[in-house]
């Protein structure tokens, strides 16, 4: 539906974001994930032709020549609601008014979208009197009222408090499912990306570095920086000892690790990536099919939300997560010994970055 090749987004004269290749499939929900300042908003504004771009951008197979005409087929919701100093209904119908739609039809469609977003009762109110969450709902209703072929969402929840954000994400996920509108969403929040997206693109340092399903991006990050960003806290230098068709044996410090993934071609010193949630902690060696089991000393215990983060020393540093309830029931304490276990199918290997 939308194809970008070597797309460069500029802010002023400065190139701030680049995507070598990005194909948007009709009906899909794509999240562009990355840390603050990574260039993901600039990239989405480039895709919406709201900033100057270089490279190639094609819509439904044809290069975009008339940006005004293309922009009338898409809609953008920004981080802030950016409502005009008018009534809620007039704001929701603004895109339709700009397309010359008559007042009666405009109001009906605006009211329908406002109701869908749960703010129908506010239609006659002044937009200036809305709370942040209500205003963002109106902003989304305004975008949906024009029935866009592509909806771009530029961190629409980041200015909202947590409870408001959670309910709005749930409502938006429902509305996007109902409408089936093709969506590109920018976020720095992994949970938001997972809640709303079919595919995830990771933008770091102005570059679209990886694009794939959530499983691929979170399970097989393309490089150590992406791994760190998507929560793969264990990125451990290893040495390939032996590789067969079934297993790869790796040496890490004095320990041997066996995994099913083959080593990167020509790289005998890859990086082993393991998500902390994929490591099982027990008091005694567990009798399981898992091929990797290490006795470890607990170096540190850190509560994080509803989980506890364990920093372990098993000859090499390893980070694991357990629920706070498990930590309590196992009575885990610093300097005590535990057993850390993970399956051979869990880790992912990355080529070592060489400078």
């Amino acid at each position, binding site marked *: 539906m939308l194809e970008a090749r070597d797309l460069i987004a500029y802010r002023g004269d400065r190139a701030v974001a680049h995507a070598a290749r990005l194909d948007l499939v009709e009906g899909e929900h794509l999240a562009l994930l990355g840390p603050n300042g990574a260039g993901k908003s600039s990239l989405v504004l480039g895709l919406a032709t709201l900033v100057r771009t270089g490279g190639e951008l094609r819509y439904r197979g044809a290069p975009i020549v008339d940006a005004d005409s293309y922009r009338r087929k898409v809609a953008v919701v920004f981080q802030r609601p950016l409502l*005009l100093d008018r009534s809620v209904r007039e704001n929701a119908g603004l895109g339709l008014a700009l397309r010359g739609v008559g007042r009666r039809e405009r109001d009906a469609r605006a009211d329908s979208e406002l109701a869908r977003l749960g703010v129908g009762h506010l239609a006659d109110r*002044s937009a200036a009197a809305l709370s942040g969450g209500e205003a963002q709902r109106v902003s989304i209703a305004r975008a949906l009222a024009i029935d866009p072929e592509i909806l771009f969402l530029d961190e629409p929840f980041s200015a909202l408090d947590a409870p408001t954000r959670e309910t709005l994400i749930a409502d938006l996920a429902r509305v996007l499912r109902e409408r089936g509108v093709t969506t590109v969403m920018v976020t720095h929040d992994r949970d938001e990306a997972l809640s709303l997206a079919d595919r995830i693109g990771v933008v770091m340092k102005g570059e679209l570095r990886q694009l794939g399903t959530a499983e691929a991006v979170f399970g097989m990050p393309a490089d150590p920086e992406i791994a760190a960003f998507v929560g793969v806290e264990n990125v451990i230098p290893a040495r390939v000892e032996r590789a067969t068709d079934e297993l790869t044996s790796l040496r890490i410090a004095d320990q041997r690790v066996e995994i099913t993934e083959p080593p990167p071609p020509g790289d005998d010193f890859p990086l082993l990536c393991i998500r902390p949630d994929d490591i099982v902690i027990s008091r005694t060696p567990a009798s399981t099919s898992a091929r990797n089991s290490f006795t470890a000393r607990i170096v540190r215990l850190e509560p994080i939300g509803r989980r506890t983060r364990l920093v372990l020393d098993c000859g090499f540093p390893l980070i694991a997560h357990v629920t706070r309830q498990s930590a309590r029931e196992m009575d885990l304490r610093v300097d005590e010994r535990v057993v850390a276990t993970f399956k051979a199918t869990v880790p992912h290997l990355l080529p070592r970055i060489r400078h």
Partner: protein
Amino acid sequence: MDLILQGIGGALAKLAALDPDVLDAAVASLVVSGAATALAVVTGVPLGTLVGLTRFRGRRLLLSLVNTGMGLPPVVVGLFVVVFLWRSGALGDLDWYCTRQGMVIAQYFLAAPTVIGLTAIALQNTDPLLRMQLLSLGASRWQAAWLLIRESRLLVLGAVIAGFGAVISEVGASQMVGCNVKGDTRILTTAITLETSKGEFGSAFALAFILLGIIFVLTALTTFAQQRRPVA
């Protein structure tokens, strides 16, 4: 103090009696300054919007000229306009020297820089993302500019009030270009100058209070329009 009280009394008496000289001067003031302000708004708001919203070569120089224009001495403007309207001047064929049209031109050059400069500041201070949002909703550049002017209406109306205030109260340019012809180009400010020079302070105060009254009523009406909020 007596003179001031006498002036207020005189003003009320002249208004009650519908003094033709006062009415002529008041009407001339409103017509000339109103027309000059209207022209300044028609040309100045679009130009101010252009300067405020776009970046082009020479923009800073243009803004500096506009800002200089906001402090133009009326007599200097009057001098230039007189030279142009003089019978042998570039616009002498118009025969607008000592006419209200000539005064409108002079006052236009006093009001326009204020309207352009303050409109540019107002538009420059709008949220750049709001402009992007309007374009993303399908607005053409003209539609987006118009919506941004409406969003900035408090400040744009402030620019109009300031422009009108600058010309309704000026005397130098109007005196030089209009020649202070009784019943035609004599406006309230030039009439006050004349009455004061004759030592007719009571009459001068009366005219001054009428001028102040007009300025107050018009700016109050504009301020009410400016501060009006949409439906709550």
